[in-house]
């Protein structure tokens, strides 16, 4: 495509005067949302009236249906379905004018935008907003836990804060932030002009704020918010106040978003790689997202099933998990963990990819054992599906099942160990630049090894019987999801910040942020191993007085950890506006995203790149990953 052609496609269709109410956008949202709300009420009451079910006006089904209808109304108003509706109604194919592509002002981030780079930033900013909200929830309940007994919150509010902290961090921060970073980087890394399905991509993003709003809004529901923990175990969760339905449905919206993005990644990675980009030449981040997407596509429907069943138990009085009606209580846990254990890998494999990029580039060495690194991802993928019941060692499932589940769980340590050792070997003899991304990558290795080792303790059934459902679990999960995933996310943010914003972040503030986070993190979570083993259960608003001193210490440390985020936010916001302009390739990296300008052009590459070598050939004289300069074909969809 010529430069002129790009320009002709980059301007947006001028707004048509007088059609404000029917044009896709926030004005249309203002009337489609109430319309769908009314439709929801109409359908429920009409069906109940026709079927002669009393009372006709009944809150449970109304809320459940409205939590589908209102978001649909919002999406229709925003224009997420416009093109498909036009196409499906059998009208003439509308030539793609790319009017919904790219961003020239901040307003373009608030509409259905099909540019993967805009969507990537939409994802990242949204997840950071929820990161701050969920972090504040944690600080609130740490304030409560600073002393034994009730301080600020009653047990209901406490349980809501704990449940929503976990649910938001998992479904609205860690899972989607990787989808966001992947969205921005992966098409660039494989030499594509966009994702395979840009409109689906836009829809995937807009489901996220819906899911997040639903989880937060549930807190204001009459009777209190979702308070059965993020695991939402039946039958407790079917007997909670109606805020629990907001949780059940919020998870569905986040899960749908996750599945659609994963399908998009898979098709993009399989079909849209640049010429010469074989699987064995793909950067490890692409491998990681490929593996993760396979996990998401297979596993996520299971959590959808678990949440639908448990909601049907309360709303429609089914008996999937109600023992009184012949239901199988443990069935919930099996279905739930069949997603939620692979979800742990969904939340960390893309991080592994980020760490591989950062360590190789910053150590100025090829990644050590590239093929084994990629194969170990696939090993984790396969084993990851065979370990779900290690969350249920004390649950009372068939006791023989515990030993095989223990063995598979232990074996996962092998491919994970391979990755750790290979990163260390990559650093060995390197010329290491300990800038902020590399500091977070190094800090990640240290904390993730601790989280991995405490995972070995928990994999051993007898030790797990002692430690299950205690603060030891809380310590372990935060060492793998905070010391693990969140550290990789920060490494990724700093690493690609110049590419995404076109500006450099402040290096000194970045390093300050790392040290505050690293120290605050360890002071907060390491003592939890001890209080857990000594006998403090998790998810309690009150605890035995002998744990008072350590809990006060943990709470103070957690406030320090929370404050470190302020440094990060200031650095990001200030650098985004006033930072030094970033060169195309500040890290002297070989992968393709660094071979185009910062930020990249609208369709990424002026010409389709020709991949000629491996992505990490640092120190190899004359080695090249790709040649840019082959004439390009038109991007898909141009008439």
């Amino acid at each position, binding site marked *: 495509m010529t430069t002129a052609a790009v320009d002709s496609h980059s301007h947006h269709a001028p707004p048509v005067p007088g059609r404000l109410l029917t044009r896709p956008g926030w004005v249309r949202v203002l009337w489609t949302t109430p319309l769908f709300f009314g439709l929801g009420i109409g359908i429920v009451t009409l069906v109940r009236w026709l079927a002669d079910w009393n009372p006709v006006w009944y809150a449970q089904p109304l809320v459940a249906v409205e939590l589908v209808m209102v978001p649909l109304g919002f999406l229709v108003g925003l224009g997420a379905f416009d093109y498909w509706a036009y196409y499906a109604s059998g009208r003439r194919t509308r030539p793609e004018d790319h009017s919904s592509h790219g961003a020239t002002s901040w307003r373009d981030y608030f509409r259905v935008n099909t540019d993967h780079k805009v969507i990537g930033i939409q994802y990242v900013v949204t997840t950071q907003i929820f990161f701050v909200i969920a972090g504040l929830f944690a600080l609130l309940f740490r304030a409560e836990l600073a002393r034994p007994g*009730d301080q600020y919150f009653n*047990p*209901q509010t406490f349980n809501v804060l704990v449940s929503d902290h976990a649910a938001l961090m998992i479904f609205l921060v860690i899972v989607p932030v990787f989808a966001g970073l992947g969205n921005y980087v992966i098409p660039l890394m494989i030499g594509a002009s966009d994702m395979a399905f840009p409109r689906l991509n836009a829809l995937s993003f807009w489901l996220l704020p819906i899911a997040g709003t639903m989880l937060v809004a549930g807190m204001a529901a009459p009777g209190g918010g979702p308070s059965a*923990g993020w695991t939402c*175990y039946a039958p*407790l969760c079917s*007997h909670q106040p109606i805020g629990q339905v907001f949780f059940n449905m919020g998870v569905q919206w986040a899960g749908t978003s996750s599945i659609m993005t994963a399908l998009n990644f898979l098709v993009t990675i399989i079909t849209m790689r640049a010429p010469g980009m074989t699987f064995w030449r793909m950067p490890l981040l692409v491998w990681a997202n490929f593996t993760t997407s396979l996990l998401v596509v297979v596993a996520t429907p299971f959590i959808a099933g678990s949440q639908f069943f448990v909601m049907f138990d309360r709303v429609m009085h089914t008996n999937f998990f109600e*023992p*009184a009606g012949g239901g199988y*209580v443990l069935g919930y846990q099996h279905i739930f963990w069949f997603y939620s254990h692979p979800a742990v890998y969904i939340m960390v494999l893309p991080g592994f990819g980020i760490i591989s990029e950062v360590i190789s580039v910053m*150590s100025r060495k*090829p990644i*050590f*054992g590239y093929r084994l690194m990629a194969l170990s991802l696939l090993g984790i993928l396969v084993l990851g599906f065979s370990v779900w019941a290690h969350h249920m060692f*004390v*649950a*009372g499932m068939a*006791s023989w099942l515990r030993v095989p589940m*223990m*063995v598979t769980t*232990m074996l996962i340590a*092998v491919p994970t*160990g*391979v990755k750790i*050792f290979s990163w*260390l*070997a990559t*650093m060995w*003899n*390197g*010329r*290491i630049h*300990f800038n902020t991304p590399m500091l977070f990558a190094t800090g990640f*290795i*240290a904390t993730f*090894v601790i989280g991995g*080792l405490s995972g*070995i*303790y928990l*994999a*051993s*059934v007898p*030790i797990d*019987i*002692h430690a*299950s459902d*205690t603060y030891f679990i809380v310590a372990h999960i935060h060492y793998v999801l905070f010391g693990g995933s969140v550290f990789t996310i920060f490494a990724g943010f700093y690493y690609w910040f110049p590419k995404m914003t076109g500006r450099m972040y402040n290096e000194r503030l970045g390093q300050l942020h790392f040290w505050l986070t690293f120290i605050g993190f360890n002071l907060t979570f390491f003592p939890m*191993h*001890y209080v857990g*083993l*000594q*006998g403090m*259960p998790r*998810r309690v608003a*009150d*605890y*035995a007085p002998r744990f008072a001193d350590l809990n006060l210490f943990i709470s103070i440390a957690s406030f320090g950890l929370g404050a470190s985020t302020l440094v990060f936010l200031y650095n990001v916001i200030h650098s985004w506006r006033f930072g030094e302009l970033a060169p195309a390739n500040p890290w*002297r990296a070989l992968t393709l995203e660094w071979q185009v300008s910062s930020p990249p052009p609208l369709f990424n590459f002026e010409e389709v790149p020709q991949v000629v070598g491996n992505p990490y050939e*640092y*120190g190899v004289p004359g080695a090249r990953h790709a040649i840019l300069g082959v004439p390009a074909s038109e991007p898909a969809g141009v008439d």
Partner: protein
Amino acid sequence: MRRGSLVQLTFFALVAAGICTAVALAIPWLPDPAGKEADRIDFTYWFVTVISIGVFAIVAAVLVYAILKFRVRPDDDSDGPPTHGHATLEIVWTAIPAVLVTAIAIVSAIVLAQNGRAGANPLVVKVLGKQFAWSFTYPNGKTYGSLTIPLGPSKKYPNGRATRLDITAADVIHSFWVPELSQKQDALPGAHNTLVVTPTRTGTFPVICTELCGLGHALMRSHVDIVTPAQFAAFEKGGSQTSGPPGLAVFQANGCGGCHTFTPAGSNGAVGPDLDKLADYAKTANRGPLATFIKESIVNPAAYVQPGYQDQMPHIYGQQIPADKLDQLVQYLAGPSK
């Protein structure tokens, strides 16, 4: 790898292992075990700890060495040696962890099998979890709000017995745990799970619910008294709960003793006010006659909070306890204090 760097690396690893070992030994990470199962779990724990310290020391040593030796200044734009891998090394660090985790799995599986065996003639106690109290029913049909079990068989007490708990729940999932016994088992509504404990020392230890079960989860506590076989025989004969006043059954079924001291019920909880002093409290509170005051304090605990305590009693007992049982409980609590 040069010889000098290997020596330094070994030195770092030894220092790291030394620090980790000191941390592992100086802090009493696990509670002092009170049962055979806990002893075995302790052994497994130390087995894993030794391996973990080894692995962590190696990783820490390489990280520290890399930070100290391989860092360059920001303006250094040289590249490292283009090493792509090393087949032998990659096989080694795949195989060794595989062997180590297999060893842990074998030890764990043996311990698990041993910890499930109750031996001949165990005492069987039925455990019922409900929101938010535990109750324990003995073979003789008597039910208590706390657990009393004998020491396991030993040289000193050849007539000791292991205890097999038959655990279930009335409403939602709870989880039975005694940290000193290290054994834990979920209580499921509509299903029965078993758990074996073989105590090795006498004492009173907390029983904790570890599965989120609703508003009163944090306060769903009881205790276990481990006694000598002779004391247990005496316990089995006397101390019947069913022969006591009807209010005692209500007291125990609702787990009041988990938080409150009340001598007639034999409870010594210290979370909430001391119920032996109810008459004094009623005078200070000045909220009507003793019985009225007690009832109000159960149904609406926030109405008056005894100085020195906090408003943390669950507000659920008004709905949870039927009216006739509530009257029995009020009468029982007011009675001995008159």
